[in-house]
C-alpha cells in the first residue's frame, strides 16, 4: 500500500514541494522548533496581555465607580443645590449651547459627597466599630446610570456591600454617620475654627447596595472601594448643617457620545450665592434703630442676621423680582450695598472681580480685623477686643470720618490711625488720654495660624485724628457677619475660635464700658488705618479684603445686574467651582500607574531571549543532524541561497505552528500571571483589588500584535542559522562535520594532556562550544533575572525607633476625613478630647507632626491607577527637624549640614521666584510621575493638582516650578510630593488645616503599646474622622506590592530556566546521537555505561554551571548598588535555591536524555 501511495504522489517540481516533503520527514525536530516558537509567542502575548487585561480591568472598574456619570460640577465650598436646576435649564437651551448640537439632554443630579465616619454602635453582641466611608447624599441614585439601579433613599442609609462586610452590618441595623463640622472661615485664620467639632446622626440601614449599583460609587478611580453610605440629600444636608446646598452636581449624559463638558462649561454660571458671597443692600440707620428698639421692647434677643444660605430675608439676586417693583418695596434704592463672604475674607479671585465690576461703581474695599488689645505705649489703660478697619481713603459709601466739628479727617497713611471718640474717651477715663501724635500699641493675632496655634504680635501706630461717633465711625455695616461674634448680644457672650479672655472684657456694671459699646455700636471699628497697612497686619494667603461697599446704585443699574456682572466676572475654577471631566480623568488614570504590558515584556525579554537561543539551538541541531541531506543538495548544485531558502521554508512551517499554539496559550499565560499578581495584591495590598486583575482575556489586537512580534523574531533567528548553514561547503555538509575547524575554539586543543573524566567532558563542551554557550546563555539569562529581581525584594521594615529606616522613626500614620489642627500630645488638650489619664500620658510622650495635604491621589505603587494629581504634603518644621528616612540621592548639603530635609527649609527661605524644593521617593519620581532625579524640575499646578515634567521655557501659568532636591528610598511616605509647610501654604492658599499626621511613639515596637497609642490617637481625633495606621503596616503593604511583582518576574525567570533545561536535554540528546560511534569506542576500550553517562552528564552540566556562575554573578553585580543603598543582604537563599534546583533539573534532563539512548556495544553498530 505504501509503495502504491508513493507511486501516486506527484513529482516535486518546486522549492515549496521539496520543503513540504522535508517537513514531513523532519517533523519530530521541527516539532521542537515549533515548541520553542510557541514559548516565545506565549511569553510575548502573555506579557502584552497582562498590560491589556489590567487596563481593561482598570477601565471597567473606573467605569463601575462612575456608573453613567461622565462629569461633575465640583466646588470647594457647598453651593446652592438649585444650581443643578439652573444648569439644566441653561445647558439644555439652544441659547446657552450656542447651537442645537451642543445642548445637554441628560441628568444633572445635585449631591453631597464627602468622607464620613460610619460607626456601628455597641450592642449586646458586638462592640463599637467604625470606619471611614464615602457618603453620597443624593435623591436620585436611580438616574446615575449604574447597572443596578437602586430606589431613592428615604430616611435611612443604604450601605455598600463592602461597608456592610467591614462593619458586619445588615438591613435594619443602626449606624451613626459622623462628619466634621464645616467652617466656612479658613481654619488657618484667627477667626477660623481649629478645634474640629463633629456632627452625627443615627440612622437605620435600609438596604445593602448590591455590586454594580451606586454602592460602587467613587469620584476618584481606585482599585478598591472604602465603602459607600448613601442617604437622601435632605439627610446629608441636615447632617452637614447645609440646608439647601450641595457640593457636587453629577452629570449623566442622555445619549452616548453627548458632548457634556462643553455644554456644562458654557452653561455654568454660578451666582454669588453659589460662591458663598452676599451682595446686599444695607438697611439704613433709621431702620436699624427701629429693629433694635422693637427687639429691646419685646425682650427678645436681636434676631441673627439672616444667613445667605438659610433663606430668610435674603432674596435671590438673580430673581427678576429683585430688580422689579416688589424689590423696591423691600430695600430702598438709596441703600448702600455690601459684598461679603461666608469665609470672611474674599478670595483673591473674587477680590479681583470685585475690583473690576464694583470699582467703577464707586465700590470701596476694606479689611476688618480684630485687635485683642489697644493701649497707649507704656500701658496704664487698655481696651480689649476691638475691631479695626483698613480703608483706602476717607471717602466711604457708609460715610466719612469726621472730627467733632463735622469736618472730614485726612485719610490715614503709613502707620497713622484714626481712633473714634469713644476709644479716646475710654482711654482718658482710664487715666491715659491720647491726643493726635500719640503712639498706640495694637496687639493682634498673626494673620495665619500654624499648627492650630494662634500667635499675637504687637503693632505700633500713631494717632492722626479722632473721629466723632458718626458717619463711618458709627457704621456697624463695615463688619461682615461672623458667627459667634457679631451676632451676639453681648461681648461677654462671644464664642470665638481664638483664645478669648473674658476677664479682660468690661461687661459688669458699673465697669461695663465694653458691653455698652457693643450694645450701642456692636462690632463697629474703633480704629481706622490705611488699607495697605491693614493688609500688612491682617492680610493673608486667604485674602486681603473682607468687604466691598458700594454707594447707592443709580436707577439704571439694578442690584441684580451688578450681582450678575460680578458673578460673571469671577472665574469659577479660580473661585473653586469647576466642571470636572470625571470619565476622562478615569480613562487617563486607567492607563495605569505602570505600563504593565511593557514592564512585563521588558522583564520577559530574558525569557524571550532564552527562547530565541533555544530556537536557534534546536534549529542548529536540526541542521546538524540533516547535514548529509543538505550536503547532497549542495553537491548536486543547490547554491547557498537556495539551501537557506529551503531551510527557512521548512522552519516557517514550524514557526507558524508554534505561533498558532502561542496565540492560544498566550492569553492563558497572561491570566496565570494576573492571577498570581491579583492574589498577592488582594492579600497583602488592598482587598478588593482582585477585580482589577480578574478581568477578561486580552484583546485580539494585543494577541495578534504579540504573535506577529514573536513570528518576526523567531524567523530572524532561523534565518541567520539557515544562511550560516547554506554557506557551508558540500563536503563539510556531507561529512556532517559541522562548522569548519577554523571556527572551533582553540580551547578544545587543550594545553595539557587529558587526565580525567571532567577534562574529557570539558573537551566535549568546548568542541561544540556554540551549543554549550547557547545552554549557558539560556540558563544565565534566567538566573540573572531571578537573582537580580531577588535583590529588589524588600523584607524587614527595621525597628520603629530608628530614624534611618523606611519609617523614618515614625510609628503611626494618620489620615483625617476632615482637616484638623489638634495636637493631642499637648497636655492641656487631653480632657477636652475625651482621653483617659493613661492615654494623655501615653500621647504626651509621643512626637506628633501635623502635615498639610492637598487633595491628591496616592502615587505610590499601591495605586494601580495612573496618578494625574499626586498627593502633595506640607511638612512642618517639627518634621524637618526630626529628619530620618533613607535618601537614595540628594543635592549637596551646605557646609555643616547633615540633614537632607534641610534642603526644603533652606531653599524655602530663598527668593520667592526660585523653584520650590521638593523631596519624593525615587520610585514615584522615576515610574509613577516620571519626573527625573535630583536637580530635575517640574511644574506643579496647585489649582488642578497636576504635575508636568520639565519646568523651563513653558507657560508660566501652567503651574509652579518645583525642583527635586532629594529622592527617598522606599518608605512610608512613598507616593507623595513633599515640600516645606511654608511653601505649601504659599502654593495652596485655599487649603486650610491639616489632613495628615505622623506620630512617633516611644517603644512602639511592642504590639500592645502600639495598639494603645493607635487607640488613643483614634479617640483624640475621632471628630476629624481619623484613620490611624501603624507605619509598619503601611510599609508592609508597600513592600508587598514590590514583592508581588517580583514574584511574577521570578516566575518568568523560572520559565527561562525551564527553557534552559529543555536546551540541556536537546543538546545532550543531539550530542549523544552524533557521537554514538565514539561512545561505542569508549565503551569498547573500557568505559562502563555509567562512566559514559557520567561524561555526558558532565558535558550537560558544565554549560549549566557556566550559565549559573555568569547569570548569578551578573545578577548580584547588577543588584549591588541596590543592595548597598537598601542595606539589604545578598539574597543567598534565592541564589542557593535557584542554583540547586537548576542543577538538579538540568542534571535530570541531561541524564534522562542520555539514558534513553542506547549506546552501541561496538563501533560497527554506529
Amino acid at each position: 500500500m505504501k509503495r502504491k501511495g508513493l507511486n501516486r504522489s506527484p513529482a516535486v517540481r518546486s522549492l515549496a514541494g521539496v520543503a513540504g516533503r522535508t517537513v514531513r520527514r523532519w517533523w519530530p525536530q521541527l516539532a521542537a522548533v515549533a515548541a520553542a516558537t510557541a514559548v516565545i509567542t506565549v511569553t510575548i502575548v502573555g506579557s502584552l496581555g497582562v498590560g491589556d487585561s489590567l487596563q481593561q480591568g482598570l477601565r471597567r472598574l473606573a467605569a463601575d465607580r462612575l456608573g453613567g456619570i461622565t462629569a461633575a460640577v465640583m466646588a470647594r465650598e457647598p453651593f446652592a443645590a438649585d444650581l443643578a436646576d439652573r444648569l439644566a435649564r441653561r445647558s439644555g437651551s439652544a441659547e446657552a449651547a450656542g447651537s442645537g448640537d451642543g445642548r445637554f439632554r441628560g441628568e444633572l443630579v445635585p449631591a453631597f459627597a464627602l468622607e464620613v465616619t460610619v460607626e456601628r454602635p455597641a450592642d449586646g453582641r458586638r462592640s463599637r466599630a467604625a470606619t471611614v466611608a464615602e457618603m453620597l447624599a443624593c435623591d436620585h441614585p436611580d438616574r446615575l446610570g449604574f447597572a443596578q439601579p437602586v430606589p431613592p433613599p428615604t430616611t435611612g442609609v443604604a450601605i455598600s456591600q463592602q461597608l456592610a462586610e467591614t462593619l458586619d452590618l445588615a438591613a435594619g441595623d443602626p449606624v451613626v454617620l459622623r462628619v466634621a463640622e464645616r467652617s466656612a472661615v479658613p481654619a488657618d485664620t484667627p477667626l477660623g475654627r481649629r478645634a474640629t467639632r463633629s456632627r452625627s446622626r443615627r440612622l437605620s440601614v435600609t438596604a445593602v447596595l448590591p455590586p454594580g449599583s451606586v454602592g460602587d460609587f467613587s469620584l476618584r478611580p481606585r482599585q478598591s472601594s472604602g465603602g459607600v453610605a448613601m442617604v437622601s440629600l435632605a439627610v446629608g444636608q441636615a447632617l452637614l448643617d447645609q440646608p439647601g446646598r450641595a457640593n457636587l452636581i453629577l452629570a449623566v449624559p442622555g445619549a452616548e457620545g453627548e458632548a457634556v463638558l462643553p455644554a456644562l462649561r458654557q452653561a455654568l454660571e454660578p451666582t454669588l450665592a453659589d460662591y458663598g458671597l452676599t451682595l446686599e443692600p444695607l438697611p439704613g440707620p433709621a431702620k436699624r434703630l427701629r429693629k433694635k428698639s422693637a427687639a429691646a421692647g419685646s425682650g427678645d434677643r436681636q434676631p441673627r442676621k439672616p444667613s445667605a444660605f438659610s433663606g430668610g430675608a435674603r432674596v435671590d439676586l438673580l430673581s427678576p423680582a429683585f430688580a422689579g417693583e416688589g424689590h423696591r418695596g423691600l430695600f430702598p434704592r438709596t441703600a448702600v450695598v455690601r459684598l461679603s463672604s461666608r469665609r470672611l475674607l474674599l478670595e483673591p479671585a473674587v477680590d479681583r472681580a470685585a475690583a473690576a465690576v464694583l470699582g467703577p461703581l464707586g465700590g470701596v474695599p476694606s479689611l476688618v480685623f480684630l485687635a485683642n488689645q489697644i493701649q497707649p505705649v507704656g500701658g496704664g489703660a487698655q481696651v480689649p477686643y476691638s475691631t479695626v478697619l483698613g480703608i483706602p481713603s476717607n471717602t466711604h459709601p457708609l460715610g466719612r470720618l469726621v472730627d467733632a466739628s463735622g469736618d472730614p479727617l485726612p485719610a490715614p497713611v503709613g502707620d497713622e490711625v484714626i481712633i473714634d471718640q469713644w476709644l479716646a474717651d475710654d482711654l482718658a477715663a482710664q487715666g491715659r488720654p491720647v491726643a493726635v501724635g500719640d503712639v498706640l500699641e495694637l496687639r493682634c493675632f498673626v494673620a495665619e495660624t500654624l499648627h492650630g496655634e494662634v500667635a499675637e504680635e504687637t503693632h505700633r501706630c500713631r494717632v492722626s485724628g479722632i473721629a466723632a461717633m458718626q458717619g463711618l465711625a458709627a457704621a456697624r455695616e463695615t463688619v461682615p457677619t461672623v458667627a459667634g461674634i457679631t451676632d451676639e448680644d453681648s461681648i461677654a457672650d462671644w464664642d470665638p475660635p481664638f483664645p478669648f479672655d473674658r476677664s479682660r472684657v468690661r461687661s459688669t456694671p458699673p465697669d461695663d464700658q465694653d458691653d455698652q459699646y457693643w450694645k450701642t455700636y456692636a462690632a463697629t471699628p474703633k480704629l481706622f488705618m490705611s488699607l495697605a497697612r491693614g493688609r500688612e497686619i491682617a492680610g493673608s494667603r486667604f485674602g486681603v479684603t473682607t468687604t466691598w461697599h458700594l454707594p447707592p446704585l443709580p436707577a439704571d443699574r439694578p442690584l441684580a445686574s451688578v450681582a450678575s456682572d460680578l458673578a460673571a466676572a469671577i472665574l469659577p475654577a479660580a473661585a473653586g467651582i469647576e466642571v470636572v471631566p470625571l470619565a476622562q480623568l478615569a480613562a487617563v488614570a486607567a492607563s495605569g500607574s505602570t505600563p504593565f504590558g511593557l514592564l512585563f515584556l521588558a522583564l520577559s525579554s530574558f525569557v524571550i531571549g532564552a527562547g530565541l537561543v533555544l530556537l536557534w539551538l534546536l534549529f542548529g541541531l536540526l541542521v546538524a543532524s540533516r547535514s548529509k541531506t543538505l550536503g547532497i543538495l549542495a553537491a548536486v548544485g543547490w547554491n547557498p541561497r537556495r539551501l537557506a531558502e529551503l531551510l527557512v521554508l521548512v522552519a516557517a512551517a514550524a514557526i507558524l505552528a508554534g505561533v498558532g499554539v502561542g496565540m492560544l496559550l498566550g492569553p492563558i499565560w497572561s491570566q496565570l500571571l494576573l492571577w498570581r499578581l491579583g492574589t498577592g495584591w488582594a492579600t497583602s495590598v488592598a482587598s478588593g483589588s482582585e477585580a482589577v486583575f480578574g478581568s477578561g482575556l486580552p484583546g485580539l489586537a494585543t494577541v495578534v500584535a504579540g504573535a506577529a512580534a514573536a513570528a518576526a523574531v523567531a524567523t530572524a533567528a532561523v534565518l541567520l542559522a539557515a544562511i550560516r548553514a547554506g554557506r557551508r561547503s558540500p563536503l563539510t555538509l556531507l561529512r556532517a562535520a559541522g562548522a569548519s575547524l577554523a571556527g572551533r575554539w582553540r580551547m578544545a586543543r587543550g594545553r595539557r594532556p587529558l587526565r580525567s573524566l571532567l577534562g574529557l567532558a570539558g573537551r566535549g563542551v568546548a568542541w561544540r562550544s556554540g551549543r554549550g554557550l547557547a545552554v549557558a546563555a539560556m540558563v544565565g539569562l534566567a538566573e540573572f533575572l531571578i537573582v537580580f529581581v531577588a535583590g529588589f525584594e524588600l523584607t524587614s521594615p527595621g525597628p520603629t525607633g530608628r530614624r534611618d529606616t523606611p519609617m523614618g522613626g515614625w510609628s503611626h500614620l494618620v489620615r483625617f476625613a476632615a482637616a484638623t489642627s489638634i495636637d493631642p500630645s499637648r497636655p492641656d488638650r487631653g480632657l477636652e478630647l475625651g482621653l483617659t489619664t493613661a492615654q494623655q500620658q501615653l500621647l504626651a510622650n509621643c512626637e506628633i507632626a501635623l502635615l498639610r495635604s492637598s487633595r491628591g491621589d496616592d502615587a505610590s505603587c499601591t495605586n494601580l491607577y495612573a496618578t494625574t494629581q499626586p498627593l502633595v504634603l506640607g511638612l512642618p518644621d517639627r518634621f524637618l527637624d526630626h529628619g530620618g528616612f533613607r535618601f537614595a540621592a540628594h543635592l549637596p548639603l551646605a557646609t555643616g549640614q547633615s540633614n537632607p530635609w534641610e534642603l526644603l527649609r533652606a531653599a524655602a527661605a530663598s527668593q520667592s521666584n526660585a523653584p520650590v524644593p521638593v523631596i519624593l521617593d525615587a520610585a514615584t519620581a522615576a515610574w509613577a510621575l516620571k519626573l527625573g532625579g535630583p536637580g530635575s524640575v517640574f511644574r506643579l499646578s496647585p489649582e488642578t493638582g497636576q504635575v508636568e515634567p520639565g519646568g523651563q521655557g513653558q507657560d508660566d501659568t501652567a503651574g509652579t516650578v518645583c525642583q527635586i532636591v532629594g529622592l527617598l528610598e522606599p518608605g512610608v511616605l512613598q507616593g507623595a510630593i513633599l515640600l516645606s509647610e511654608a511653601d505649601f501654604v504659599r502654593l495652596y492658599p485655599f487649603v486650610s488645616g491639616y489632613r495628615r499626621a505622623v506620630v512617633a511613639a516611644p517603644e512602639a515596637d511592642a504590639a500592645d503599646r502600639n495598639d494603645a497609642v493607635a487607640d488613643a490617637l483614634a479617640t483624640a481625633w475621632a471628630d476629624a474622622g481619623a484613620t490611624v495606621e501603624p507605619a509598619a503596616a503601611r510599609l508592609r503593604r508597600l513592600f508587598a506590592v514590590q514583592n508581588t511583582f517580583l514574584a511574577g518576574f521570578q516566575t518568568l525567570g523560572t520559565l527561562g530556566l525551564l527553557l534552559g533545561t529543555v536546551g540541556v536535554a536537546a543538546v545532550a540528546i543531539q550530542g549523544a546521537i552524533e557521537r554514538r560511534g565514539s561512545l561505542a569506542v569508549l565503551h569498547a576500550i573500557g568505559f562502563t555505561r555509567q562512566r559514559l553517562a557520567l561524561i555526558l552528564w558532565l558535558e550537560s552540566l558544565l554549560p549549566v554551571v557556566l550559565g549559573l556562575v555568569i547569570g548569578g554573578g551578573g545578577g548580584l553585580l547588577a543588584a549591588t548598588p541596590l543592595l548597598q543603598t537598601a542595606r539589604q543582604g545578598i539574597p543567598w537563599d534565592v541564589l542557593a535555591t535557584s542554583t540547586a534546583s537548576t542543577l538538579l533539573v538540568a542534571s535530570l534532563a541531561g541524564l534522562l536524555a542520555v539514558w534513553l539512548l542506547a549506546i552501541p556495544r561496538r563501533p560497527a553498530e554506529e
Partner: protein
Amino acid sequence: MLEVESLFKSYPTPTEPLAVLSDISLTVQPGERLVVMGPSGSGKSTLLAILGGLEPPTTGRVRLDGIDPYQLSAGGRAGFRNQQIGFVFQEHHLLESCTAVDNVLLPAIAAGRVPDELVERARDLLERVGLGDRQRHLPAELSGGERQRVAVARAAILRPRLILADEPTGQLDSRNAAGVVDLLADLVADDNGMLVLVTHDAAIAGRLVGDRQSRRLELADGRLVS
C-alpha cells in the same frame, strides 16, 4: 594465553536463528600474532567482538589468561577490556574533540585519573608511531594513516595482553597499511602480548605471517577452515 573453546554465535531471526560463528576453537600464546582472514560476512568482526568481551557468544568459552570475561559483571568486563585488551578498528574512531595525545590517554582515563608515567608513555608511543610532533593536533588535522597510528598507540597505552585489530588498514594505502601493521607487531612484541588481526588483505596478512610467531586462520561462513 587466549583460549577459545567451541564458540558458537547466532542471532535470532523471524524464521530461524542465523548462525554467524560455528564451533570455533583456538588458542593464542603470549607473543603470538594471529591473522584471521576471510571474505566479508564470514564472521571475522563478530569473532573479534566476542574475543574482546564486547559481545557474548551464544555458546562456548573465551578465556584470556584464564579469565572468562563473560563470567564478569558488566563493570568487571569493562575493566577487563580496559586493562587486558586493546582495540584497533577499521575506522580510527578518535574523539574529534581531543588531541592526539588525549586520544591515546582515553583508556587510562576510563581507569581513573591519569598518572604522569602514563602521559609520558603516551608521548613515547606517539614518538614511536612517528607522531611526536603532532601530539597536540586534532584528528581532523591528521591524515588517515596518522589517525590510525594514533588509534594503535591508544590500543597499546595500558600494555594490554591482547590487541584486537579489525581491518586496521582497510582505509589506508599500502604504504601506510604496512606501517600500521609493523607497528602493531612491534608493540605486541615489546610486551610479549598477543595480537589478533582480522583482514581480508592478503598482502597485510603476508607481512605478518612471515615469522614463526605468527599464524594465519581462514574463516568462511562462520567456521575455521584452515
